[in-house]
C-alpha cells in the first residue's frame, strides 16, 4: 500500500472512531492534479489534466470541513450542494455524489473542467481562507470532475414526464441550450434543438480545445439528450433557414429558448488587421478544433496558417486556448500580449500556468498599436506600446495607460485576436419586436423572458461574454419559466 492509501485508511479509521478533527483535515496535503508532461503535450491535443485517482479524490474530499454556512455554495452560480457531494466522495459513494451535483448542474464533467472555481466556489472556501491561499482551498472542481468521470453510468438518462403535446424550440446547442432542452424535455414537452454548425455542442466543440475539454465528453451529454427524445437538427440557422416567427406560427412551436452565444468576434480597429495571418480567436480555434485543421493533409480538409511566430492578443481563457493551440500546431514561438498585468488576467490561474509550462511567453503591460505586413499582404510583425496601470476602471480592474514613445516591434507571422465577442446580429435582425440593448444583447427579465411572448433567452447573447456555468444557470431558469408558461397555456 502506498503512502496516500495508508493516510486515507488512517483518516477513515479516525473518522469512524469519531476522533477526526478539523486540525487533522488541515494537515492533509492538497492533492496535485496528475497531468501530461509539459514538453510531451506540446506535440499532442490530448487532455492535459488527467484527473484524480480514487485515493486522491477521497483524500481531497476529506480536506473539506463541512462548514455549516457552506460559503462554497454561495460562491457557486447554480448553488450545488457542494459539502454534501464532497462528503459522499469521502465515503466512497460516488453515484450519490453525482446525483447531488445533478440536482443543480447537468454537466459536471464539463464544469468540473472549465469552471473558474478559483473565483467561484473555491474562492469562498474556508480551507483556502485558513491558508490565506485560494490554491489551497478544497479542489471542488477536480472532485466534481472525478465523480462525473467515475460515476456516470449508462443508466444516467433522466426520466421524462408523459408527453404534453407542447413543442419547444431551443436555438443553439451550447451549454445553455443543452440544459434548457433537458429541463423542458423532462417536463414532457417535445423539444427540438437547432444548431447552425454541423456538430452540436456550441462553444464546447468549436471553441474550447480538446486538451482542455475532450469532445467525447460533450458528445456523451448530447447522446443523453437524444436518448431522452430530444431532436437535434444541425446545419439549421434560425433567422435564415426559418425565422423565430415561422417556427412559432407555422411550425407549431409553443415556446423558444434562444441560446445562440455571443459569436461576433471583436477586432481592435487598428491598422493591419486585414493582413493574411490575422485571425480572430474564434476562427483560429474553430479551424483547429471543430474542423480539425491539425490534421490538414492527413484526413482533414480545412487549412490553418503554418505559423512559426505567433502573437495572441488578450488575457482571457480564449487567449490561453489560442496560444496553447498554436503551440500544438507547431509554432516555434508563441507570445501572449496583454495590456494589463498578470493579476488582472481574466483567464483561470490553471490555464495561465499550463500556458507557461508549455512555453508560451508572456508580454504583459503591452498592447499592439498596429500590425505590420509585407507587400503580399502577409503579417510580418506587430508594433506594440508599453503600458502602465492606473486607477481602477468600471470593471474594477486597473486601467491600462499607454506609455508614450514606448513603441517596439515583435516579429510574428500570425496574430490571433482574443479580446472578446459582441452580440451576433442575426436573430435580432430577423426577429421583429425582440428587444435588444445598445450592444445588441437580448433584454430579458429575471425569468429569462424576452419582450416576445413565449420567447426566452440566456447565456452570452444576454450576458455578453460569460461562462459555461452561467449559461447553464440561465438555461435552467428559462426552462423552468417555459415549463410554467406552457402549463398555463391552453
Amino acid at each position, binding site marked *: 500500500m502506498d503512502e496516500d492509501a495508508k493516510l486515507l485508511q488512517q483518516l477513515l479509521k479516525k473518522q469512524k472512531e469519531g476522533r477526526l478533527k478539523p486540525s487533522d483535515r488541515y494537515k492533509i496535503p492538497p492533492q496535485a492534479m496528475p497531468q501530461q508532461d509539459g514538453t510531451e503535450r506540446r506535440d499532442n491535443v490530448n487532455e492535459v489534466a488527467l484527473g484524480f485517482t480514487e485515493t486522491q479524490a477521497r483524500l481531497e474530499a476529506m480536506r473539506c470541513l463541512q462548514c455549516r454556512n457552506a460559503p462554497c455554495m454561495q460562491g457557486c452560480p447554480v448553488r450545488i450542494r457542494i459539502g454534501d457531494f464532497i462528503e459522499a466522495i469521502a465515503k466512497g459513494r460516488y453515484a450519490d455524489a453525482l446525483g447531488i451535483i445533478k440536482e443543480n448542474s447537468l454537466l459536471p464533467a464539463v464544469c468540473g473542467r472549465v469552471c473558474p472555481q478559483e473565483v467561484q466556489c473555491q474562492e469562498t472556501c474556508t480551507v483556502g481562507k485558513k491558508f490565506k491561499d485560494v490554491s489551497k482551498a478544497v479542489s471542488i472542481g477536480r472532485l466534481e470532475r472525478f465523480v462525473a468521470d467515475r460515476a456516470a453510468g449508462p443508466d444516467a438518462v433522466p426520466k421524462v414526464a408523459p408527453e404534453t403535446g407542447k413543442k419547444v424550440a431551443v436555438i443553439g446547442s451550447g451549454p445553455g441550450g443543452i440544459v434548457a432542452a433537458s429541463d423542458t424535455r423532462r417536463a414532457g414537452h417535445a423539444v427540438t434543438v437547432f444548431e*447552425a*454548425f*454541423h*456538430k452540436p455542442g456550441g462553444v464546447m466543440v*468549436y471553441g474550447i480545445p480538446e486538451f482542455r475539454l475532450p469532445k467525447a465528453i460533450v458528445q456523451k451529454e448530447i447522446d443523453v439528450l437524444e436518448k431522452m427524445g430530444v431532436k437535434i*437538427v*444541425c*446545419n*439549421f*440557422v434560425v433567422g*435564415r*433557414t*426559418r425565422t423565430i416567427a415561422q417556427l412559432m406560427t407555422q411550425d407549431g412551436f409553443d415556446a423558444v429558448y434562444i441560446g445562440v*452565444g455571443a*459569436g*461576433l*468576434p471583436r*477586432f481592435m*480597429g487598428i491598422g493591419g*488587421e*486585414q*493582413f*493574411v*495571418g490575422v*485571425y*480572430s480567436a*474564434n*476562427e483560429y480555434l*474553430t*479551424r483547429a478544433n471543430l*474542423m*480539425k485543421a491539425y*490534421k*490538414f*493533409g492527413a*484526413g*482533414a*480538409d*480545412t*487549412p490553418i*496558417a*503554418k505559423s512559426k511566430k505567433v502573437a495572441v492578443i488578450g488575457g482571457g481563457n480564449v487567449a490561453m486556448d489560442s496560444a496553447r493551440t498554436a503551440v500544438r500546431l507547431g509554432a516555434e514561438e508563441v507570445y501572449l500580449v496583454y495590456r494589463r498585468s498578470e493579476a488582472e488576467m481574466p483567464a483561470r490561474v490553471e490555464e495561465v500556468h499550463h500556458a507557461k509550462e508549455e512555453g508560451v511567453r508572456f508580454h504583459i503591460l503591452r498592447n499592439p498599436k498596429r500590425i505590420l505586413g509585407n507587400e*503580399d*499582404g*502577409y503579417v510580418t510583425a506587430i508594433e506594440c506600446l508599453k503600458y502602465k496601470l492606473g486607477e481602477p476602471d468600471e470593471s474594477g480592474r486597473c486601467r491600462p495607460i499607454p506609455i508614450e514613445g514606448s513603441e517596439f516591434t515583435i516579429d510574428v507571422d500570425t496574430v490571433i485576436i482574443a479580446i472578446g465577442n459582441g452580440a*451576433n*446580429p*442575426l436573430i435580432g435582425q430577423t426577429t421583429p419586436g425582440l428587444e435588444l440593448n445598445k450592444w445588441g444583447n437580448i433584454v430579458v427579465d429575471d425569468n429569462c423572458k424576452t419582450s416576445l411572448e413565449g420567447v426566452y433567452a440566456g447565456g452570452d447573447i444576454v450576458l455578453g461574454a460569460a461562462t459555461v456555468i452561467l449559461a447553464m444557470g440561465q438555461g435552467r431558469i428559462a426552462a423552468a419559466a417555459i415549463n410554467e408558461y406552457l402549463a398555463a397555456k391552453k
Partner: protein
Amino acid sequence: MAHKIVSKKQLAENVFTAEIEAPLVSRSRKPGQFVIVGISGEYSERIPLTIAGADAEKGTIRLIWQRVGKSTAEMADMKVGDAFEIVTGPLGRPTHIEKFGTVVCVGGGIGVAPLLPIANGMARVGNRIISILGARTKELLILEEDFAGISDELIIVTDDGSYKRKALVTEPLKEVCVREPKPDLVVAIGPAIMMKFCCEVTRQYSVPTQVSLNTIMVDGTGMCGGCRVEVDGKAKFVCVDGPEFDGHKVNFDLMIKRLSAYKGQEQAAREAYKKHKCKIGLDG
C-alpha cells in the same frame, strides 16, 4: 440530413452544376444568398457557394462551382445520388430588389452563376436588364441561354476572342455607362480583380454599383470573422453584413490578398487528391 444530388453536369472546363435536395433552403432563399456545403461532417471543409437557383416545389437548390482546390475537385467527382452532409443556409442578406430602371448585370467567369437569380429578380419587378457576360475563352462561358431569356440586351465577350466580341467586360460596361440616359444600377459579380475594375469604370460615371463578394469563410454566421473585408475603411463581415456591398467602397486590393491566404496549402491538397485518385484507378 443528407442532401442528395438530383442532377449534375459539367458546364465548362472545371465548372460544374448540380441540383441538390435542400427543401428548407429552397423555400426560404432569396436572390443574393448563399449556402455553406460540406461533403462529410467529420473532416470536410465548409465551402460557401451562392445559390444559383431553386425549385421550391421539388425542394432543390442549384449550385455552380469551379474546381479549384481539393474539396471542389471532390465535389466534381460526386455523382447523382451521392449526398452532401452539410448544406446550411440560406445565408447572407438578400439582394435589395426594386424597380431601379435600367440595371446592368456584369458577370465574369463563375460569377455569372450567382448573378443569375439577381438578374432574374431585377427583371421580374420590371427593370430593363442589360447583361454583360465575360469568360476567358468560349468553353468557359456559362448560362448564356438563361441570360438571353431575361435580358433586354445581352453582350458577350471573351478574353481571347474565341466567341463573340474580344474584350474584357469593362469595355462594354464603359460604353453602356456613357449612354444617355445612364444606367441606374450596375451589379457586378466575378473574380475580385474584375469587380475592382468594373467599379473603377462606374465610379467615373457615378453609376451606383453593387458587388457580391465570395471570401474565405468557416461558419457563415458571423462567428469567425475570417470573411472580413474593408468597406469604407471599416471591417465588415461578408457573411452577415454582405455578401453584397457598395462596390465603390470595397478595398479590393486587401481582399485579393486575403483570398490567397491558403493558396499553397490548397494546391498541395489538390495535388495529393489527384495522385490518390490515380492510385485508386490503377488498383481498380
